[in-house]
């Protein structure tokens, strides 16, 4: 079942400047969907539209199979959210913050203890929120989002500003919620490294356009396809021709040639080929092609 679906979603704050362009999101039930994009690419705008915080006159946003416009209350009752910095009443205790949402959401009283335990804030629940650290506030925001046992969690940059320990804690918590409770999670980030360890699906947003959407493994495949090796030899021109006859070459520069490779066996074969052709190899350098670079490449293009 598709939990979030948008069809050609456009949005503009002013007439001349489209912030989102024909966005077609598809988030499947039970997935952890990472919504990636550089700052200013339109992630928060998308999330605000998904939660009905920004006006949208068309029926092109569906959550749980229903249009947001006609089923807002029903959809929000099944959705927990955290937008940018958590919205908390700083003069109140963590418990009071939870109690406010609990009453509005009609959740059971025992849910407060459960979510406090889940985010490890039980001992700090009576403390005023203004005395909390950023990580604690983020965890409290998550606890509030989890109060009504939602089927969908929409989180906008949930690890933003957290230290590495905090990032690991939130990451583990989200994985646990997804695996044990079957909660579909839609989370945004501008750093792939922050979320690549937990996502099953990815959507990459660049300048308001969805430039990649698919399973996380699809992105890894893309990574393999774009892997290159830089080779410097005694005769670069000849090397380019020899390698080009058997393998996919990319380009020839002044100092070296660039060759695509699929696996390490292929590197060994290229090496062997050059030696057999009596070409001296001065340098073979694998190019850094981690996912972060792929992400940068995609968003740059």
């Amino acid at each position, binding site marked *: 079942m598709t939990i979030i679906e948008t069809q050609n979603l456009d949005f503009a704050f002013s007439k001349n400047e489209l912030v989102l362009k024909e966005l077609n999101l598809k988030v499947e039930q039970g997935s952890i969907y990472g919504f990636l994009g550089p700052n200013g690419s339109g992630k928060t705008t998308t999330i605000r539209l998904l939660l009905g915080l920004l006006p949208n006159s068309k029926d092109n946003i569906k959550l749980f199979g229903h249009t947001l416009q006609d089923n807002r209350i029903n959809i929000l009752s099944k959705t927990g959210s955290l937008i940018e910095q958590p919205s908390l009443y700083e003069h109140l205790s963590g418990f009071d913050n939870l109690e406010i949402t609990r009453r509005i959401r*009609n959740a059971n009283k025992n849910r407060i203890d459960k979510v406090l335990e889940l985010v490890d804030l039980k001992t700090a629940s009576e403390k005023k929120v203004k005395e909390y650290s950023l990580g604690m506030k983020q965890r409290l925001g998550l606890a509030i989002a989890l109060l009504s046992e939602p089927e969908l969690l929409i989180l906008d940059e949930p690890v933003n500003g957290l230290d590495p320990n905090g990032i690991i804690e939130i990451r583990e918590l989200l994985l646990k919620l997804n695996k044990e409770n079957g909660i579909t999670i839609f989370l945004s980030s501008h750093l792939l490294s922050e979320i690549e360890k937990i996502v099953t699906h990815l959507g990459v947003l660049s300048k308001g356009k969805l430039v990649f959407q698919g399973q996380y493994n699809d992105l890894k495949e893309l990574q393999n396809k774009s892997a290159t090796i830089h080779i410097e030899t005694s005769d670069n021109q000849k090397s380019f021709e020899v390698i080009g006859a058997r393998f996919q070459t990319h380009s020839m520069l002044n100092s070296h040639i660039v060759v695509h490779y699929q696996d390490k066996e292929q590197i060994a074969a290229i090496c062997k080929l050059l030696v057999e052709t009596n070409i001296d190899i001065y340098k073979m350098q694998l190019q850094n092609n981690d996912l972060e670079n792929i992400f940068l490449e995609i968003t740059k293009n």
Partner: protein
Amino acid sequence: MQNLIKNVSTEFIKSKKTFAWWLVIIGAGFMPAFVSFVFLSKWKHLVPQQGHNPWDDFTEMSWKGMGFLYTPFFIVLLTCLFFNIEHKNNTWKHIFTLPILKSSIYLNKLLTLLIFIALFYILYIPIWIGCGFAVGLIKPQLQLTTHSPDYISLVSLCFHSFIASLGLLAIHFWLSIRFKNMIIPIAIAVVGSIIWIALYQGRVEEITYFPYSYHYSTVSPPAWVKLKMFGIFPQHEMFSLLYFVIFTSFSYRYFIKTFKG
């Protein structure tokens, strides 16, 4: 109904540990305490003549003090502080992602403020009576313990003052939604109050259309304005009700259609 009570109760949780509560409590007690201080320090000038009820002076001094700038600014400050809880904590976006209608959020806020104002008057009554009798015990010459206050008039003044508050409440309810910076509504109230004092000094008849003057008009109707009654309400209180309806409709529309937090 159960949901309404539950939702309104969340507004009271939000106001916990804020100055709004202190404003209601201190606000209700300040004027009786101040008038008591005046009575105790100037008691020789206030000893009643034969046949005169000293509670009449205690009432007049208290209510004129209340009506002048005190109650209007209580309403303005309370409304600003109440909305500032959401503005300051940036919590509107959280509220709007909860499964609750925007109209319910608006109604909860309005009802809570009306309850706060009602509480102010409810607290004022026993504090005022208590202060009067305490002054009477300390200075028996003032004869406050040998006479009784006019309880019906006291309750009636509270009721009419409450009605006079409604127009001002609705205007500042809208302003507090519209402007995140609470200085703006307060500045408007300061300007409004200066205008009403000028209108009063100038004995201008149009003062009856000016909501910042309504509390004082309830306590001490301007002699130069012909008193027109509409049932139990004098004209300015009818205008207060009218302003309440107009500005509430206006702010409701703004809150539902335009306001995004």
